[in-house]
Structures are given as structure tokens and as C-alpha cells.
């Protein structure tokens, strides 16, 4: 699903933005959730939105909202629901999702995020923070969305679970043709796992581009209060202060090899 906002007016700002189809895009510094909600088509302004090369009307937007799943951080499960199955059934009901075989859909969604189907009967109060996170993502998949907009998906996860979730997101993009947007304050995961990044400042787009290229603009990002991943900042210091010709890398083993060549 490709989303284009053309001369779009929101909160007094003029927005021009393209969310490319079939990509994992990072969204950083969106402290007021303006872009998180805009991309999810939950917050509307004035102007043109083009979806999959088609200009849209207000009615089209309502239809397209159902193609996007917004998965927020820290969702509080309703206290009157006891199990994951009840929670998922509740999601079917409130989001008006009709599927032929709801149980199969629930099990499939859990399987995608790596949770065993036996968890359907698990009591919600016994879930750990990381399990709650993965269950929330599984619920977001129940509607079979084209675009998935996630808030802090890697929060609470250890490095193994973090990598596993990234592989799941990558699979959703590559094999299931999904578009993924990740909103987070964690520059390390954005740098490692996204292809494009949109940095926000004062409710407008500060920079949007290839993640690798954007994060090499260290002085510019620092000036604008954007956190720099450790591996990037170390490389930046070596280049700037010591005039060492090492390259920017994502894997620490690569930077070690580069350092070894240059000491």
C-alpha cells in the first residue's frame, strides 16, 4: 500500500510525504503522535491523499482505514476479558472483522508472532510484558491489514526476541506484500531494521530518506535533537576527530575489521 500526502495541511503545517509500498519505514521524534496517526489515517487534515496511485475522497479514506492496522504501545487489556481468545474475539467484534474461521485466524496470527496456539486459553494476567507485546501485535494482524503501523514494537524484548520479531516483519514485507511503519524513540533499532526513516521536528518532517544516508548526517541530527546509534557515533568520532577513513557499518564485527585495517 503506497500512501502519498500532497500539500497536506495538518496542525498548521504543510506536509508532503510518501510512504513507499513494501518497505519498513522508521518514524522518530513524533512525540505528539501526529504522523503516527496521520499515516494510520486516524487523524485527518486538509489536502490530497493518494493511495496506490488513486486520488481519494473522504469515503475512500474510511474504506482504506480498514486496510491499516495501528498497533499502539502499552495497550491496557479490558479487565472483563480473561483469555487471549476472549481478547481476540473482542477485537473481531469492535473492529467489525468478519472471517470464516475465527479460531484459525487467531491461531495463525499468534503463530506469525511466534506464540503457540495453546496460549489462546492463557489468562491475560499471567502474561509477561514481552508476551503482552507480541499478543498485541497478533491482534493487529487479525484484520489482515496491508499496512501495519507499530508503536515501539521492540520495547520489552530481549535481543533474541527482537531479532525474531524483525524477521517476522521482514517476512510480512517480502512474502505477504505488507508495508510496515515503526514509530520508536530507539535509534539503535531504527538504524538496524529499517530501510527508510522519517524524522519529525515540531510536527513537521525534518528529514526523510534512506536510513543509512540519514544517519550519516550526524551533525545535522545532533543539532536537531535526534539520537544517534552508538555504532554510528563512534564511527563519526573516528572520522571527524582522528581523520580515520573507516566506513559506517551496522554490524559491530564489520567495524572491528575496519578499525583493524586503519590502526
Amino acid at each position: 500500500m503506497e500512501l502519498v500526502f500532497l500539500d497536506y495541511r495538518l496542525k498548521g503545517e504543510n506536509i508532503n510525504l510518501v510512504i513507499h509500498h513494501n518497505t519498513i519505514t522508521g518514524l522518530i521524534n513524533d512525540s505528539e503522535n501526529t504522523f503516527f496517526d496521520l499515516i494510520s489515517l486516524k487523524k485527518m487534515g486538509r489536502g490530497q491523499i493518494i493511495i496506490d496511485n488513486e486520488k481519494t475522497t473522504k469515503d475512500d479514506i474510511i474504506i482504506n482505514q480498514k486496510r491499516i492496522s495501528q498497533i499502539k504501545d502499552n495497550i491496557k487489556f479490558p479487565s472483563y476479558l480473561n483469555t487471549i481468545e476472549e481478547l481476540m474475539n473482542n477485537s473481531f467484534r469492535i473492529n467489525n472483522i468478519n472471517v470464516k474461521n475465527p479460531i484459525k485466524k487467531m491461531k495463525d496470527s499468534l503463530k506469525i508472532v511466534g506464540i503457540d496456539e495453546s496460549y489462546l486459553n492463557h489468562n491475560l494476567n499471567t502474561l509477561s510484558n514481552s508476551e503482552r507485546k507480541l499478543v498485541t501485535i497478533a491482534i493487529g494482524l487479525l484484520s489482515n491489514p496491508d499496512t501495519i503501523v507499530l508503536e515501539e514494537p521492540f520495547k520489552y524484548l530481549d535481543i533474541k526476541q527482537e531479532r525474531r520479531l524483525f524477521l517476522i516483519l521482514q517476512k510480512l514485507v517480502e512474502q505477504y506484500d505488507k508495508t510496515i511503519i515503526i514509530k520508536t524513540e530507539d535509534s539503535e533499532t531504527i538504524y538496524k531494521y529499517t530501510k527508510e526513516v522519517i524524522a519529525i521536528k515540531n510536527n513537521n518532517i525534518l528529514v526523510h530518506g534512506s536510513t543509512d544516508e540519514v544517519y550519516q548526517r550526524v551533525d545535522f541530527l545532533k543539532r536537531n535533537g535526534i539520537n544517534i546509534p552508538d555504532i554510528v557515533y563512534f564511527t563519526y568520532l573516528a572520522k571527524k576527530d582522528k581523520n580515520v577513513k573507516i566506513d559506517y557499518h551496522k554490524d559491530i564485527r564489520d567495524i572491528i575489521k575496519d578499525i583493524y585495517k586503519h590502526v
Partner: protein
Amino acid sequence: MNIIEINKLNYLNVFSDFSTSFEKNKLTTISGPNNCGKTTLLKILSKKINSNSDIIINYNNINDYKINEYYKLVKSVIPLEEEFINYTVEEELQYTVDRLFLNKEEKNSRIKSIIKNLYLNGIRKKEIKDLNDKEFILLQLADSIITTPKILLIDDLSPYLDSEEIKKIIIFLKSIISKYDMTIIINSLRLEDIIETDKIIIINNSEVILEGNPIDILQKDNILNKAGIKVPFMIDLSVKLKDYNLIDEVELDMNRMTNKLWN
């Protein structure tokens, strides 16, 4: 001297014959991968859940304490799991110190210190119902620390506070631990935050897999990675550069590291 002794703890499928201990007047970190039982252990030690196991707290069995007596001795901070009865942040802190039988000077001094050290000045007049997650957790911390309990248990703050904020809180906790005869245990998955704590215990599959000084433990990158725990970038870099004989010891500061490599 140990203030907490856990002997063959059994709890559901989380702990099986798990044993460990915590030294008096020390700030100890517990870490481990997702679902290793970090939060469960804290809840057992804070008597929020009952294990019926042999746990010695301050020389007495945990089950022999009256609940009111225990909650004075041991305070716990489980992020967002608390209800306050007062209206504003300042009123809550005042209410808490008013129940401590301290003279007026000491009460005022504690409130002043906690507001300064937990950066609550901007929200002291704010209504508790209007606090965001981070502010709420800072109030939880303040409300527990201000009573100077003998044992303070703090669950993982890293999903809510950034690394610099947690490091500053740890320095503050270290500054009061001896003065008030406290013992503090903090859970953390983000290990770069806890390097300044006195000791770290890594648990996985119901056993302690590593324990000791944080700098020494964090250099055991193979064991940590295998358990799913991310090694902080500068320690990871140092360990790998040591393997190549490019440096002699761990360096946590990036500027000093570039000086060591390229001066």
C-alpha cells in the same frame, strides 16, 4: 552479609529449585532474557505473589512477617502498578513523609532532595491523574525512596526512562544506600544503564548463570548473547578490540577509545 536468601524457590513453571542471595547495603541488578522470571522474582520478594518457598528476608522467613510490618520493611516499584490516593505529586509525597514520624526539618529535607534528584520540580503541582507514564513512574520511585525502606525492589525502568535518566537515578540511589542502611535490587534488560551498580546477577532457565561486578560480567559476551542479552556497545567493542590486541582494557568512553586507538 546477605539480607535476602532464596533457597530452592519453586513457582509455577518459572522457578524450579532456584537459589540466590543478595548482599546487605548493596545495589544489585538482576538481568536475564524475556520470561526468565525477573519481574516474578521481584513480586515474590515484595509479597505481591506468594510462593510458599524458603526465603529469608532480614534474618526472618518471609512467611513469618505480618503484612503491614513487611510492607514497611520492603517497598517495591513495579512500573504503573500502583494507585495513589492524593491529588497532586507534592501532596502525595507530603502525605507519605507525614506518616514516617520524622521531625519537620527531616521531612522537608527528604521532600526537597527527592524532588531535586528525581527531576520532579516541573510536576510537583501536577495532578496525579494527568501524569504521563514516565512522570507516574518517577512518582512511584519517589514515594518509595522517600520512606528509605530497608529493602527497595525496582522493576525494569528501561521501557519508560532513557539510559541517561536511569544512570542518574542509579547514582542517586548509590549516594543514599549507606546513609539510610538500604539494600536495593533493580531489574534491567538494558545493561548499559546499570554499569554503576555494585553487582549483577544474570538469571536464565531458573538458575544464576553469571554474577559479579558488572564490568567483569558484561565482558562475557558469548554467554550473554547465547542467553539473549545484548552487551552494551562500548563493552562489546572493547572485548572484540581486546581480542585483536588493539587495547588492553575495557573503555566505556568513546572519545577516550578513539584516543587509545589513533593517538
